């Protein structure tokens, strides 16, 4: 796999404060879907801001597609490659109608009107919001606004989109809708995704899960690798996905289930395989 973002031995602090991030080593590959988990104040948002040159490392280096984020000349290019979507959709809307809002980014890239039109239409279609292109943004629901915000980034044709808790204000259906959109962009357009979240069921959708604790990376790996380390996660007071928690309780009651199950259907399959065989008491 080809590296897109390379975070190498990074430490970070604001001015004279304490270190917020220490010894961070993380690689985001092209087209990879990475989820970033950790308690409030563990450094997730700070880390994501280092990825598009909103913040610079105090020590160490961050490169995006080979460009170092401390290089002032490249800042603009880096931000075109890595876009950021925030938690509250109301804080990131700049125009009155949907298509104007999405066009804001491409307009700033000084593209031709035809190209802007094309990008706006394509990106609205890719998030399923094309039919709302003339609507007033303020009449949309939270989930719809969030999809418009994502569309605004997609129109910049980035290599990577960082989403900082994009679903925490949304109802269950809108949440699913936004997640489906993120997955689609990742699978179909091969855009790398960094998803900052508190929801375990969102985190396990990723190729790679990164757990942050007190400014350090506690563990990183596939969802299966990470959620098999139940003791470590518990010791650091992480909440397990419900299915993993359920599996653990059953295992402790001598049920012969494998570790690291995080998917409902996988759980049911594993349970089926033992329930007839009476392998536990």
């Amino acid at each position, binding site marked *: 796999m080809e590296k897109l973002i390379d975070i190498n031995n990074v430490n970070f602090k604001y001015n004279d404060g304490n270190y917020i991030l220490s010894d961070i080593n993380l690689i985001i590959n092209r087209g990879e879907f990475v989820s970033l988990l950790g308690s*409030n104040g*563990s450094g997730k948002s700070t880390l994501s801001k280092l990825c598009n040159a909103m913040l610079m490392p105090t020590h160490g280096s961050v490169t995006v597609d080979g460009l170092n984020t401390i290089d002032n000349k490249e800042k603009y290019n880096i931000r075109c490659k890595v876009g950021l979507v925030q938690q509250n959709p109301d804080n990131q809307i700049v125009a009155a109608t949907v298509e104007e809002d999405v066009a804001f980014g491409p307009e700033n890239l000084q593209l031709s009107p035809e190209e802007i039109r094309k990008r706006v239409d394509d990106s609205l279609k890719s998030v399923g919001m094309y039919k709302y292109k003339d609507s007033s943004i303020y009449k949309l629901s939270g989930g719809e606004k969030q999809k418009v915000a994502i569309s605004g980034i997609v129109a910049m044709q980035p290599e990577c989109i960082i989403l900082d808790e994009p679903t925490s*204000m949304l*109802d269950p259906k809108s949440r699913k809708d936004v997640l489906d959109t993120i997955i689609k962009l990742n699978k179909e357009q091969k855009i790398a995704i960094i998803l900052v979240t508190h929801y375990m069921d969102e985190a396990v959708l990723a190729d790679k899960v990164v757990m942050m604790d007190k400014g350090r990376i506690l563990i990183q790996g596939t969802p299966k690798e990470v959620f098999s380390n139940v003791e470590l996660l518990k010791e650091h007071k992480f*909440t397990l996905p*419900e299915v993993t928690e*359920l599996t653990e309780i*059953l295992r402790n009651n001598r049920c012969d289930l494998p570790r690291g199950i995080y998917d409902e259907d996988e759980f*049911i399959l594993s349970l089926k395989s033992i329930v007839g065989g009476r392998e536990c008491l």
Partner: protein
Amino acid sequence: MSLIEIRNLSYIYSKDTNCPKTALSNINIDIYDNEIIGIIGHTGSGKSTLVQHFNGLLKPTSGGIYINGLDIWKNPKKIRDIRFKVGLVFQYPEYQIFEDTVYKDIAFGPCNMNLGPNEIQNRVIESIRMVGLPFSILDKSPFELSGGEKRKVAIAGVMAMKPNVIVLDEPTAGLDPLSRKNFIENLKTYHSREKNTIVIVSHNMEDIVEISDRVLVMNNGRVEMFDRTKDIFSNGDVLMRIGLDVPKITKIMFKLSNEGYRVKRDVFSVKDGAEEILNLFRCDGGLND
């Protein structure tokens, strides 16, 4: 007698313009003393509009709201008294913080209630403990705090007024799972100590199940269901049809039950779910034929 009584309440935004929008139509509900009520509903279903009627921030377009049997709009000049009885914590309560220390911010409400200095101090300390923040935070500026901490300070500020009814609009959105769990636990403790009434709006079904005695389900400005928590979440199909969900563990039990396993469908905690599954092993085979 009910504590909050809502009769035929409707609310229309921008009523006298050419684009009026009906947010609530014909709501009839009763909330009793010492209950914990959960409110769920899709975005735009009218949850926040409804709770803003509880303390008279919005005036019904038609219909009425009665607290302890008294029509709160009978004498609009007295509406301020209602705000001491019913405390409201908005969405994004961190935006309500304005003082230069956490202490002063929490003390602002009690100060306006003309309480003595000792009482104010006790209330500040009690509320900061209730939201699970260390005392050392009291001297800090609220603006140095993290998002989650600010939210807790704002909630403590409302708790310190000890209202009979406390209404929380999405208090746990954006909190990490552990903070969320602790917050819900602390809220329960506060409830059993103060014997007050709590109304909590949330998109998180796990929180709602954990804390509510009864759940009000809103859909397109109307009451879809209002029943005991257990009965509401047994109606998984209805909830999903209107854009809501059941807790994840409940979903697993639904799936197992649909596969023919003899498990209860009204299971809302992982512990109870595990117990149900272990029972499968205890009785024969565990599969329905």
